[in-house]
């Protein structure tokens, strides 16, 4: 298998203005980083990358949390709804941050999703009001590796 080589030879993904995402208050623990680019690479669905704009080596893997848990009902504080300028639920794109622990274990943070305003591209990591109902390490069902 030549996985490592394939990765190295991969064409760098050029960020475009259409998927730049600004997080004015930063992610928790990364408050100083405010400019990101949201990138989906073919073959990696349903995952996408939230890459630091000035440093393509720094990135978070994200997933639509509803894809993992269709009954997910995040309760977003009114102040955050106002901050993001969300008028209705269709304005919001939710991204769950994925931690890849190993080849066989990956989890998604359902307590603190990133909420993106689809129209302004302004986003914020929000600790949902019903965070106690959800796991910070909600397991992702990974496919069995083909032998």
């Amino acid at each position, binding site marked *: 298998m030549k996985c490592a080589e394939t990765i190295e030879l991969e064409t760098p993904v050029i960020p475009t203005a259409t998927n730049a995402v600004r997080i004015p208050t930063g992610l928790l623990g990364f408050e100083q980083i405010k400019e990101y680019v949201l990138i*989906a690479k073919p073959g990696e669905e349903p995952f996408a990358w939230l890459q630091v704009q000035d440093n393509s080596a720094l*990135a978070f893997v994200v997933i639509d949390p509803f894809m993992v848990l269709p009954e997910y009902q995040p309760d977003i504080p009114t102040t955050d709804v106002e901050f993001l300028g969300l008028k209705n639920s269709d304005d919001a794109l939710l991204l769950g941050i994925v931690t890849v622990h190993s080849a066989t274990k990956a989890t998604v943070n359902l307590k603190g999703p990133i909420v993106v305003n689809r129209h302004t591209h302004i986003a914020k990591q929000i600790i949902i009001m019903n965070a106690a109902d959800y796991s*910070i390490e909600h397991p992702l069902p990974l496919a069995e590796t083909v032998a």
Partner: protein
Amino acid sequence: MLILSRKSGESIIIDGHIHVKIVRVEGDVVKLGIEAPSSVPVHRKEVYEVIQRSNQQALMKQPLPLPKLAGAPKVAPKTNLPKP
């Protein structure tokens, strides 16, 4: 660390625009009312730390191959957002 004594109903003001009010004191529980601009995130520290740790663990410094998800439809989050 600055330590101030306040009674129930009294407040402090931080930087002229963040108000922290002592709403009630019941035994060892102090209820605080916080008024801050929406651009100032306010969190319970223990929850903040859990999410901070999770973010730090999630950060990828190399574009590693991603695992495949079982059973889920192959739809990525909509990365082509309408122009602002």
